[in-house]
């Protein structure tokens, strides 16, 4: 149980972090580029959502395995498969939650507008500088929403994790699988308990984030 909780938090945090690093710039690009390529990428990003999680997991299982496209690269580092490992879970979760980070972030950036970037450019702020000092703070609402959705979704997600994880205690057995198992075994009491705990925890995390964001927004805006 404790192991599962710790693992879940690690997975959700790491996934959210990676999504921030990957998804936020992607959202930024998609907000500013109006070309057809950007539109296509934008639609592609949403696609993982369309597949049932277990099915996505199934494809990941094939993709990350010894017969998958990554296999030669992995073999070089002595790894046979990314399945049944924590890194594998992270990859699956990141892919699956990508749209939840990218789309709100993109909207946030779309709201920033040319004006602010122009003002920043005339004050000698280069593209990277502008991104961090102007775009990101002004698009904060969208980015925070993306992070909350990603975090919550990774906690609850279990189809992908189930499929590529192999339910190894301490490695890939997260809380959502534990709850699922409890329901499956007819141990409804345990399921209720874990669900209640998870909900309470998530509620506190999300509410706190929302309030901090609002406070920050209220002060500066």
């Amino acid at each position, binding site marked *: 149980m404790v192991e599962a909780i710790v693992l879940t938090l690690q997975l959700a945090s790491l996934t959210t972090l990676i999504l921030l690093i990957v998804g936020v710039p992607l959202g930024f690009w998609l907000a500013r580029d109006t070309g057809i390529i950007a539109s296509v990428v934008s639609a592609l990003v949403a696609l993982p959502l369309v597949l049932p999680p277990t099915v996505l997991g199934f494809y990941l299982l094939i993709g990350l395995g010894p*017969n998958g496209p990554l296999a030669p690269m992995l073999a070089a580092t002595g790894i046979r498969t990314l399945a049944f490992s924590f890194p594998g879970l992270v990859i699956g979760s990141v892919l699956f939650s990508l749209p939840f980070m990218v789309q709100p972030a993109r909207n946030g950036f779309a709201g920033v507008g040319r004006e602010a970037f122009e003002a920043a450019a005339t004050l000698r702020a280069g593209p990277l500088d502008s991104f961090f000092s102007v775009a990101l703070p002004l698009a904060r609402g969208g980015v925070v929403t993306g992070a909350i959705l990603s975090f919550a979704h990774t906690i609850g997600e279990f189809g992908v994790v189930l499929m590529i994880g192999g339910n190894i205690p301490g490695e890939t057995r997260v809380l959502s*699988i534990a709850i*699922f198992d409890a*329901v499956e*075994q*007819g141990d409804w009491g345990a399921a209720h308990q874990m669900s209640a705990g998870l909900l309470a925890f998530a509620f506190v995390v999300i509410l706190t984030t929302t309030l901090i964001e609002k406070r920050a927004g209220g002060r500066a805006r």
Partner: protein
Amino acid sequence: AADLRVAVAANFGAPAQQLAEAFEAETGTRVAISTGSSGALFAQITQGAPFAILLSADEARPKALVDQGFAVKGSQFTYALGRLVLWSPDAELIDSSPAILETDRFSHLAIANPQTAPYGAAAMEVLGALGLEEELAVRIVTGESIAQAFGFVQSGNAELGFIASSQLATAGGGSIWIVPEELHAPIRQDAVLLEAGNDDAKAFLDFLRSSKGREIVAQFGYGLVETTQPAPSIYG
């Protein structure tokens, strides 16, 4: 719309479909097969799911349904016996014995979840009997269902795994060790009637136990309970 709704454990989905077609050809009664995990089906039935029959993957849940009054007393019977095999897509790996399990020539052994799936529990019994339970603990990966365990092996992520012999049909080659039945308690897949007055349901269950039905079940690699006479209807 269908005349008869049958809940079927996911691993028995394909044979159930064929049974349904054969049954319809014979009687004209159309059967809708709904698959799901045994746990989910159990929860659904206790919440009033409109199924007339449950073909479970175990014997515990049908019994529990009878005990709780959701199923007809005395209607429970074993329609198929699960057969466990150790399988690898690698034709060289298994030499028709469990010897491979004592080597380190593999990093992952896939089984179904022993807590929720009878095949998983049986696999653990086998490992216990071989005295490898402890030693292999860190190399075991658990699929939520026997289908997932199969997927782990089929995709090559686990080198070998305990699967149902019914899955060998889709496996396509490789090497196997057929697990002797003495090494684990029989994997009984039980059927139970959920709607007492449903004659179509009774007819389907009778069909399942008929020689024609048993033939189909056996075709898919399941074992059968010995019977001396062709099943008389137990419903009178």
